[in-house]
């Protein structure tokens, strides 16, 4: 089975059974919606409303600023009450539009805002997807339309769909595959059309047999879509690991997947493409797994983008007394949230509340060279050695040791018995290195 997995990696406790069996439910509209203009990779949207404006559900509040950007839309009808710097889930402050939700509005969609896709040219589909504000829902929030039109100097032969969902706790992709397999396939169809490929492979970790079965059942007859069960291992869903598992090819260090002829998209994003063409509404809500042993009532919820984390947790009956850390995203790569006023944004895959038993201890011991991090690193780095270099700030040497190939998956920190914050050091080193490089270039 080595072909469907990768060497190394780790096995953190999955903890998915908290929510994997719970059907997706819709969360009621909160009283206030906060829409940061920066919710995606690339340029933030440019503001197009002012305080006092009335917006309907689906109206844009910010336009795309160029090709590497997408618009932001109001996720509920109401009135713009403020435009100000507000806590962003990534810990910074970001320009955000506040909307007081109109309690009496029916929140019904207006007439179709996104055109039907049948009969559109590739360019028109790409444009429609951009105007619908669709971004990758797997966490990085990369604008989807950019992936629909890969650079012309490469030929793409396969669309790889990421249904691995290897982060512990998270089940939003899992539930999407179980409950909306047609949407996944529909999204596949749209992407295969724009990419001009005839072959798609959906990789799903073997611990989700119901998802695999649902996808198999809903598979369209006229498309060449393969559903590939993957070994359960973290980080199976990392782009390069997934490509290796599916094609057996290693993406060259420092290169994009398209150099080996594949494009990777995650299942949630495909379902989102399908949804916008289906309902005619732009991307204004998403499926979020709200879970953790520190939460009273875990759930998979359809949440309007812009809902405050505070309201989201309150809807799940709040946190337990031993709750210690709230994570935006999965516990391996997600970010701890410092302010629960921050909103759910397009890239929010899940909110995980960890208890005091689960969070990392504070005592750090010296590296004992046990070699566990080497056996864990999916890209075969030597985290122990990189850690030594990071501590003495030899950033240039770290670059020579392939720091750029580190994908900050956290496997090394997870296994280190001495509790050395390896990937945290690497994150900081990457930032420092970039600063050095910019200074050197100037």
């Amino acid at each position, binding site marked *: 089975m080595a072909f469907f997995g990768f060497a190394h990696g780790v096995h953190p406790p999955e903890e998915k059974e908290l929510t994997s069996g719970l059907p997706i439910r819709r969360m009621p509209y909160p009283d206030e919606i906060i829409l940061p203009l920066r919710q995606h990779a690339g340029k933030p949207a440019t503001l197009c409303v002012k305080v006092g404006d009335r917006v309907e559900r689906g109206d844009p509040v910010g336009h795309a600023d160029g090709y590497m950007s997408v618009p932001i839309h109001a996720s509920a009808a109401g009135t713009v009450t403020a435009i100000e710097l507000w806590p962003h889930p990534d810990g910074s402050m970001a320009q955000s539009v506040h909307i007081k939700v109109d309690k009496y509005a029916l929140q019904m969609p207006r007439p179709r805002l996104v055109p039907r896709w049948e009969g559109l040219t590739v360019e028109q589909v790409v444009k429609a997807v951009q105007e619908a504000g669709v971004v990758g829902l797997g966490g990085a929030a990369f604008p989807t339309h950019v992936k629909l039109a890969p650079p012309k100097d490469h030929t793409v032969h396969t669309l790889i769909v990421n249904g691995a969902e290897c982060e512990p706790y998270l089940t939003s992709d899992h539930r999407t595959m179980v409950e909306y397999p047609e949407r996944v396939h529909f999204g596949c169809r749209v992407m295969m059309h724009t990419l001009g490929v005839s072959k798609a492979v959906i990789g799903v970790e073997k611990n989700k047999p119901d998802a695999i079965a649902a996808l198999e059942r809903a598979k369209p007859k006229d498309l060449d879509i393969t559903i590939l069960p993957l070994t359960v291992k973290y980080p199976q869903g990392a782009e390069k690991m997934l490509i290796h598992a599916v094609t057996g090819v290693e993406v060259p260090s420092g290169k994009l997947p398209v150099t080996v002829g594949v494009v990777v998209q995650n299942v949630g994003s495909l379902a989102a493409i399908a949804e916008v063409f289906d309902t005619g509404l732009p991307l204004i809500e998403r499926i979020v797994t709200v879970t953790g042993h520190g939460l009273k009532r875990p759930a998979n919820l359809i949440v309007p983008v812009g809902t405050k984390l505070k309201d989201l947790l309150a809807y799940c009956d709040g946190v337990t007394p031993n709750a210690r*850390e709230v994570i935006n995203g999965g516990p391996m790569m997600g970010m701890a949230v410092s302010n629960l006023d921050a909103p759910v944004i397009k890239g929010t895959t899940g909110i995980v509340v960890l208890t005091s038993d689960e969070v990392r201890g504070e005592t750090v011991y010296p590296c004992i060279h046990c070699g566990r991090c080497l056996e864990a690193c999916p890209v075969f780095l030597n985290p122990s050695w990189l850690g030594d270099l990071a501590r003495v700030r030899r950033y240039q040497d770290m670059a020579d040791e392939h720091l750029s190939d580190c994908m900050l998956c956290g496997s090394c920190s997870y296994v280190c018995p001495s509790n050395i914050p390896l990937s945290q050091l690497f994150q900081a080193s990457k930032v420092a290195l970039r600063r050095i490089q910019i200074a050197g270039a100037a």
Partner: protein
Amino acid sequence: MNATNLIVTASPHLKDRDTTPRIMWTVAASLVPVILASAFFFGVSSILVILASTAGCLLTERWLGRKDALRDGSAMITGLLLGLSLPPGIPMWMAALGGFFGIAFGKAIWGGLGQNGFNPALIGRAFLQTAFPVAITTWPTPGGDFFALKGDLFAFPFMSPQITHVVTSATPLGLFKFEQKLTPIVDLVLGTTGGSVGETSAVVILLCGAYLAWKGYLNWRSPVSIILSVLVLGQFLHFINPARAAGGLFHVFSGGLMLGAVYMATDMVTVPTTNRGRWVFGGCVGALVVVIRVYGGLPEGVMYAILIMNAFTPLINRATQPTVFGTVKLKEAK
């Protein structure tokens, strides 16, 4: 809701349950059967020797190490291993002095846990070997009354010990080297031969090591490669000159080889970090052991073989770095 007790840390937010102290203490605990076995063969003397060396190590670590350095358990392991590598009749003050030397010069001056280049227990033993060559090569015969001392354990420091009433005998390796007498393998495996405190029962050591390897606290690659290399090279030399070199199995089961291979060549700090490096390390240690035993002036070479290879560890590490994902093609293209 109350958000005041929330913390904010960098990802990953989860951590495997194994910690360095847990690994170290488990390794220390796994030595208990080995100690019991040696008490069975040498009586109370072996316990006293181990106590003395361990006390020397712990006190020194307490004195020179990090604050609460004792909690991580590594000094405990050093003390137990040093004790196990000494003859059961050695005066206790010498054992304690060895412990002091091992921790002070084998570990503390390097910067403490994780920083040392050489195995501290072996540093301590090497010091004793140089300072007290007679005491450390006086091997009492196993068996006899449990409470009968195997030497002048309570000798005062720097007084010549009075070893009058103890029966001593050469170790199997010495017997072969100097008298060409071959000890039956069965005796070696079971441990009913003369030797240091823990150099006795190969079976017990192997079982304890297997347990650790199963728990994931011991990397099996170095012991396996050492044993294989000793077996093959030993057998080969035996084939060439049976009078000079004993067989491969004899080498594997005699002397400190088992203890060294299972517990000292697996000290994570001083052996290579990479798995390929561990194979290289083990293979070289095995070869050195056989060469020293067969051609060297000493009957035993495990200690020196491991110490020598410790010195090569950084080099082996550099040479056996794993190939980074996605770089194979790049190199070919160059």
